[in-house]
């Protein structure tokens, strides 16, 4: 028995050609995605009313990193690039990446291609948190950190509540989905109630908050969202093998492969909703990226989470970056909030995917 096994093993030692081709293709797609992302980030900095060229962007980045002098007539361009444009495009990219990774986790763990990071009611909860702070303060001149804190506290509290209840019910997928629907209804009703009682100023502030945007991006926002995403991604990659087992083989088979399904699911869903909660708190509600980003990535690189997770970060980041660039140009000098643009782009893209790729979205 052992001898036949060894013989067969010896024969099949080198990886077959299709496997090597597949690996090469995967690596090329990942590298290409990375290159395109960097280029898109640079180009999108040049977009806007104040004319800035690609050379100016590169020069500004070099000066701000290595140091150097800037001439007096370049000072305003430098300020626009480093204080307005760069934080804006980086926040858009980081937020898109975070939402997309969050969506991959949610879809894989719940074994459902139609769920998104907001399925558990994170976004209505965050909106209510922000609205509550605005209403209590009674002004639309609040500092940004107040609404951010309100939104984040509420979003994380609701996520913890949903996960707590679901854990008590042994993390059944249907329980999670239904709890999410219930939370969404409850918090939308609560926000509506606040809007109903709000005065004109606070009502405007509440509604403005819900339009997800990166208009007021500051370096502080970029750092927080960026660092959280950069830390979360390697963690998810560490569990990508377990994620594969759960998503493709189901709970029972995943357990038989040695995966601790319960703890892995709770932990990764907690990470997923935390990512979504942080993005929503800083940028407002940006729908569709968390749903479409993962699907675009799956079409490009396949469903294996080892490659899907990093590529989904790129595809989600790019999607939001492009949507923001479009929002800044369509009715320039006015800026359409990226949350609205991305829904306009993401909706049709998603319908197209549903109609053309039945297998992938089965």
């Amino acid at each position: 028995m052992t001898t036949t096994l060894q013989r067969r093993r010896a024969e099949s030692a080198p990886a077959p050609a299709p496997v090597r081709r597949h690996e090469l293709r995967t690596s090329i797609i990942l590298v290409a995605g990375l290159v395109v992302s960097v280029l898109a980030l640079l180009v999108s900095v040049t977009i806007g009313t104040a004319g800035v060229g690609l050379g100016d962007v590169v020069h500004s980045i070099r000066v701000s990193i290595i140091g150097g002098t800037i001439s007096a007539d370049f000072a305003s361009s430098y300020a626009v690039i480093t204080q307005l444009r760069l934080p804006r495009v980086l926040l858009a990219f980081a937020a898109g990446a975070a939402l997309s990774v969050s969506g991959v986790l949610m879809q894989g763990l719940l074994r459902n291609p139609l769920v998104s990071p907001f399925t558990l009611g994170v976004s209505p909860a965050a909106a209510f948190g922000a609205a509550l702070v605005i209403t209590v303060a009674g002004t639309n001149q609040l500092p940004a950190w107040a609404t951010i804190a309100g939104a984040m506290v509420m979003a994380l509290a609701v996520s913890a509540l949903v996960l707590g209840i679901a854990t008590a019910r042994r993390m059944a997928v249907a329980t999670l989905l239904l709890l999410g629907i219930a939370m969404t209804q409850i918090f939308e009703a609560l926000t509506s109630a606040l809007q109903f009682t709000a005065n004109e100023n606070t009502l405007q502030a509440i509604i403005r908050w819900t339009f997800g945007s990166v208009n007021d991006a500051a370096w502080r926002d970029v750092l927080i969202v960026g660092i959280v995403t950069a830390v979360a991604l390697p963690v998810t990659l560490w569990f990508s093998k377990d994620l594969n087992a759960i998503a493709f083989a189901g709970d029972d088979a995943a357990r038989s492969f040695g995966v601790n399904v319960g703890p892995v699911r709770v932990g990764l869903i907690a990470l997923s909703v935390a990512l979504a909660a942080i993005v929503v708190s800083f940028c407002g509600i940006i729908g569709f990226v968390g749903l479409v980003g993962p699907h675009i990535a799956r079409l490009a690189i396949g469903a294996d989470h080892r490659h899907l997770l990093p590529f989904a970060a790129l595809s989600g980041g790019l999607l939001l970056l492009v949507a923001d660039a479009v929002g800044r140009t369509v009715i320039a000098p006015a800026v359409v909030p990226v949350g609205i643009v991305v829904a306009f782009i993401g909706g049709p893209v998603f319908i197209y995917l549903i109609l053309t790729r039945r297998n992938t979205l089965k």
Partner: protein
Amino acid sequence: MSLTVDHLSFSYGTRKILDDLSFEVAPGAFCALLGPNGSGKSTLVKAIAGVHRARSGRVAVEGRETAGMGRRELAKVVGYVPQAGDAPFDLSVREAVMLGRTPHFGLAPRAEDRARVEESIVRMGLEELAERSMSELSGGQAQRALIARALAQDTRVLLLDEPTSALDLRYQIETLQLVRQITREEGISALIAIHDLNHAARYCDQVIVLHDGRITADGAPAEALSAPVLRTVYEVDVEVAVGEEGVEVRPRVDAEGFTRTGSRLDELEADGTVRAGRIVGAGQTVHSGQTARSVRTEQPAATSTAAAR
């Protein structure tokens, strides 16, 4: 003994599903797990696979108790093939088989894992389909891919949970032949939950009959598949023929539900005799046998022997 189950019990809450089961499956043996729906076949398979953790009793693989192993360690000695189910996302056959290597590698598969996957693919005759996506496969092909996945897992015990139930006759036979061949060649112990008595009799070396979470019979097909046992367990009159080609089980019931001797099935006692039916008030039942069915006859039927061989 490759697989030893000793006084295993399992319950969902207060409902007892498995009640003090003990049996052994030898290395290289293919064992069938028979029994009606709800008799605990699936639960037993999952309890051994570590999908459920049993409440009491012990399971040992080649003398090592599985209770002391971590999940991952257990996954290296016990493989599990579920019924072919729908995956929400698409995967190539090769990627699907690689899932079986999950307990063996860390972050990414190594050369050894890839070699084992290719070997399993060849073993199950899936070379032509390796690049195809799982959703394009027929039921039989998908089931073969799942068995290849379990083979890639490289375990000493192979558990199959009704792998043939959704397959047509040809694929049923093909699957059973393959599992039988693999158990022989690799010297592993295979346990298969299955409904078809004749397939079990033909392809398996050992048959265990479960009834209400207990073992009613355990032995070679010719011993375990006796007419009285099957009548008790399935509540159907059967005839068991032992011929040169092995054991064959035939139900002795016509389309209207009458046995060959003309009596209603409900009236059959476990030993093959027909019990006297009596009319009691509506909704009330009288039964003296092990069956919990109501007596529906209007006339006391003549006691006749339903020809137990």
